[in-house]
């Protein structure tokens, strides 16, 4: 899958968790969880939904690599075969 395809899936999943977000307002290089107000339950639901869509299992130890939309997408592109 291309970077763009993964980005679309990530944004669709994010919208499912936080319907109020406007895609244009998201800054891809700024901390995602602050921008979208995701508490730890939202974050876990987000990862579970990504797991269902992309079959990627994200270990907890990798959370700190996934701060922004850009780093998250890069990570998923690498992990997704």
């Amino acid at each position, binding site marked *: 899958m291309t970077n763009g395809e993964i980005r679309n899936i990530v944004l669709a999943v994010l919208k499912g968790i*936080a*319907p*109020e977000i406007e895609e244009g307002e998201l800054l891809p290089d700024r901390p995602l*969880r*602050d921008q979208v*107000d*995701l*508490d*730890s*339950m939202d974050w*876990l*639901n987000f*990862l*579970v939904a990504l*797991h269902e869509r992309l079959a990627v*299992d*994200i*270990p*907890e*130890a990798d959370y700190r690599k996934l701060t922004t939309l850009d780093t998250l997408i890069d990570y998923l592109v690498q992990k997704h075969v």
Partner: protein
Amino acid sequence: MVAIAHAVRVGGGAVAAWRAAVEWADAGGAALVVREALEAAREKPPVCDQGSEGWVRIALQNATLWLQAENARRPVTERVLMAALFLKAIALACEKYPDMNGLCRDGTFAPAASVHVGVAISLRQGGLIAPAIHDVQQKSLTQLMQDLTDLVKRARAGSLRSSEMSDPTITVTNLGDQGVESVFGVIYPPQVALVGFGRVAEQACVVDGGLRIIPAVMASLAADHRVSDGHRGALFLAEIHRLLQQPETL
């Protein structure tokens, strides 16, 4: 509130302020509830049933390490959040301190037979509700995590059962998750206690006589002083603290 502002502006001591407030209420046609409150104030001191017992800083080093190890061997769909540990610790502490768990109606407290923990959930469209997870004291962390996930999902979808809304016996608020360090909540009557958890963050703590940077959280308690007192409240918080140091027993 306007009556108080008016009385303060007029000045002249407490009695004069009260008289001014009564005159203001009579002249201005204040709401019945305000006039009744003023009339009651002639004889009785003001009453506030809620007492804040303060807060305690809880070291979460053990809990964090235990959760990391536990979650590392669980698939993402079965991962456990710290919030589940908080829920279980509160419920077990309630069994030891039943004066925190129950309902107080007409000044009479009835301890609850089981622990139904109300969980404050913020709704994305704004607002806050606190439906219950039932029988928390006897559920496993895995079960609690499933219940919590399901409850948050249904709360946001607007499909809660009426029993979940009406029968919590104590409430926990975890709103500090992303933001503030400590939360001081307000009791949901007729419940008699509310526990607030702030954000879990790395803090400088003294451990074994040395300074260490470890994850910790501020836990606060608001309790009804008709039922318990500050001493009982402090013991209750200390019990939650103790339980969270032994996550494997939760």
